[in-house]
């Protein structure tokens, strides 16, 4: 598949106003509202375009398997610092379109923080290059970051440049017996101190914390924090990142509540796994969508229906009227025929 072919397919679909479903490895088919439209498979447009480790930048095509990209970085002692979840045979394009970050987001930043540039084929079949391959770039509006997390509704992300970082020199994980409120308080208190915190996860009365950085700094922090060394830490964090942890098993609806990190326990029915120093609360619950969304909103956050047999309540928290109008206006500029992943993010987009 070539860029010209992508453009032809999109131009043809736009002319016919026929929806297209942009898809890489399909590992996140479950994410967002139900996909619809004729399949446009991006996997054949693959490969690393440019990678110079000393520049801390990698540019790759959308169909590049995320696992392959991470292996190439790993060979040079580097990584994607936001630890994106794969959830299967993920591609780079889908990774960026979904905008999901993993456990290390609390310390390293979100996926969008590492997006430096994208090549987009928008709904008008225009090939557009935004941003670039350098760390600092303020020429023009930041459309690259707009594309991150847009679920392909503004354009096909054909190529992306990401900032990468050296792999942490040393990691060490600790476990603490804490109740929920105690864990939330401790995570926030620690995060306000100059400690090399990298990730945190609380569930069922146990708080797991990962430290990362220079070995002497990690050791000094570990002796200050106390706790018990976490056995098989690699597997534990993989389980949190990839949702292979037992918490995520089963068919009960999985909610993803993003709240200010200091939000006290939400008191919703169900089981929780709390990440990102208290700011991300995974909830397994049969509670009514309205109830979950209202609790998140009261706290100053929002709730995403992440995995569920029935997404009728809408995958994402509704936007206010002005924001929704801006969303529609942006969609109309980039995809006037409304053919790219329609409805995947919000109805009417």
């Amino acid at each position: 598949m070539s860029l010209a072919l992508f453009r032809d397919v999109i131009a043809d679909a736009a002319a016919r106003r026929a929806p297209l479903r942009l898809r890489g490895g399909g590992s996140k088919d479950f994410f967002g509202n139900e996909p619809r439209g004729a399949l446009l498979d991006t996997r054949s447009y693959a490969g690393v375009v440019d990678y110079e480790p000393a520049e801390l930048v990698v540019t790759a095509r959308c169909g590049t398997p995320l696992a392959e990209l991470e292996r190439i970085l790993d060979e040079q002692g580097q990584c994607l610092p936001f630890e994106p979840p794969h959830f299967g045979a993920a591609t780079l394009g889908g990774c960026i379109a979904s905008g999901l970050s993993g456990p290390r987001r609390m310390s390293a930043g979100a996926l969008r923080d590492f997006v430096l540039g994208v090549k987009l084929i928008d709904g008008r079949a225009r090939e557009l290059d935004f941003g670039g391959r350098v760390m600092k770039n303020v020429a023009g509006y930041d459309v690259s970051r707009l594309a991150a997390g847009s679920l392909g509704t503004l354009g096909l992300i054909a190529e992306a440049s990401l900032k990468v970082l050296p792999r942490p020199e040393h990691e060490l994980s600790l476990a603490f017996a804490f109740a929920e409120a105690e864990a939330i308080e401790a995570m926030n208190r620690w995060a306000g101190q100059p400690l090399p915190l990298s990730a945190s996860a609380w569930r069922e009365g146990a708080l797991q914390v990962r430290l990362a950085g220079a070995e002497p700094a990690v050791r000094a922090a570990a002796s200050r924090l106390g706790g018990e060394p976490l056995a098989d830490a690699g597997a534990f964090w993989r389980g949190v990142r990839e949702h292979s942890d037992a918490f995520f098993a089963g068919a009960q609806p999985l909610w993803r509540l993003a709240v200010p990190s200091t939000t006290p326990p939400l008191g919703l029915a169900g089981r929780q796994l709390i990440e990102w120093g208290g700011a991300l609360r995974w909830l397994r619950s049969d509670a009514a969508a309205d109830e979950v969304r209202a609790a998140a909103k009261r706290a100053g956050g929002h709730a995403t229906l992440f995995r569920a047999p029935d997404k009728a309540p809408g995958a994402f928290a509704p936007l206010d009227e002005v924001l929704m109008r801006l969303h529609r206006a942006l969609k109309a500029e980039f995809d006037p025929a409304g053919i790219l992943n329609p409805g995947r993010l919000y109805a009417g987009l």
Partner: protein
Amino acid sequence: MGEVLSPVAENRSRQREVAAALRAFLPQRAVLFDEEDTRPYECDGLTAYRQLPMVVALPESEAQVQRVLATCAAMGVPVVPRGAGTGLSGGALPPGDGVLLSMAKFMRVLRVDPLARVAVVQPGVRNAAISEAAAPFGLYYAPDPSSQIACTIGGNVAENSGGVHCLKYGLTVHNVLAVRGFTAEGEAIRVGSAAPDAPGYDLLALTIGSEGMLCVVTEVTVKLLPKPQCARVVMASFDDVEKAGAAVAAVIGAGIIPAGLEMMDRPATRAAEEFVHAGYDVDAAAILLCESDGSAEEVGHEIARVEAVLKAAGATRCTVSRDEAERLRFWSGRKAAFPAVGRISPDYYCMDGTIPRRRLGEILRFIGELEKKYRLRCPNVFHAGDGNLHPLILFDAANADELDRTERFATEVLEKCVAVGGTITGEHGVGVEKINQMCAQFRAAELEAFFGVKRAFDPRGLLNPGKAVPTLARCAEYRRMHVHGGELPHRELPRF
């Protein structure tokens, strides 16, 4: 490069009409239109461009900002927001037929939440004042543009400002969690949130760095970080500028992300040393300043690694700051580089291109050739870790020919930045200053997409019109002018 635009408003009656409409809800002293009152607003930090605004409005509440915008929208009057006016690209150049909206009265730190590590501030709060308010809690706001004692967070949001610690701590876009404000029509909007990953499109990223063209920001929520326990800086001398450039790549290649990594060439080092006596090696062809911060253990460990890498890369001298006073002294020269250069020349012109680090040597050679070609000196200071260059062309604005040569010199440098895979602006913004060079960086399709983004937020184009994104007609003209190998025809035409 610069120009003084035509004096305000032949149409005095329009001026009176707009001022009267604003005075219906703003106190008299908050609506200025007499020339002696509006004169201080005629330019921002890019003083080569001046324009008296038709009217200046100084609201002090969100409700007043809303009414200024709604009133101007109803009357079809352009509005240009302004913070402290320290911007270097003319982003706050006023409209001769519109309202300059000064946010200077929004000076309050509304809330510092030490446990959540956020501060909620008004846009007129100075960048440094945020860190001052957070200091009692052992926290600080990371982005530190060199103008941080004067520039305001509202302007930082508009420009996506950086500083000397971006490589490790990011730009404004990485450190702002949410903004509140109004669209050009006066509708309240709230983008981003104190909770991560706000739903929908990332309008926060779009707003940050939009140069005041999408909305007017009235409240900013920023992320605060724990203040590192200690910091030390290595100062290294090199007998060759390209070796210094290679040393930068070697540090990063070794897996080290320093808190700051700056480079100055000999002319810049000498100017700074004469000005502030920072203890620089004035015989070195270039010096590097490499800072490490964190816990004492971390810093000790990292500094040792940095020193080893720099020595292996050919550093002729390496000095590590022994205490905080010495660290600040080493930095004082770098931070005073611009004023120091200002002392050795009647005027200087600061560029802001960014390049892939590996092309540093090539760009430096190119700048050296241009110094000969245009018979102008050009000391260089770089945020080397980010590949962000600030070459400073020395000239005398009173000499029209020098001004003209300076403009052509700068244009060649920025176009070279684009040619090697970089950008025309790393942190200062496009504004009016680099609007032509946007034509070199983007094709018609991207420029049209930028206009699309603008239309989505501001369909009538009333907010900060004419900045940051050139029209296709302007680019056609620009490209045509460049057909003749650097020699610009039509010298009588105004050129921005």
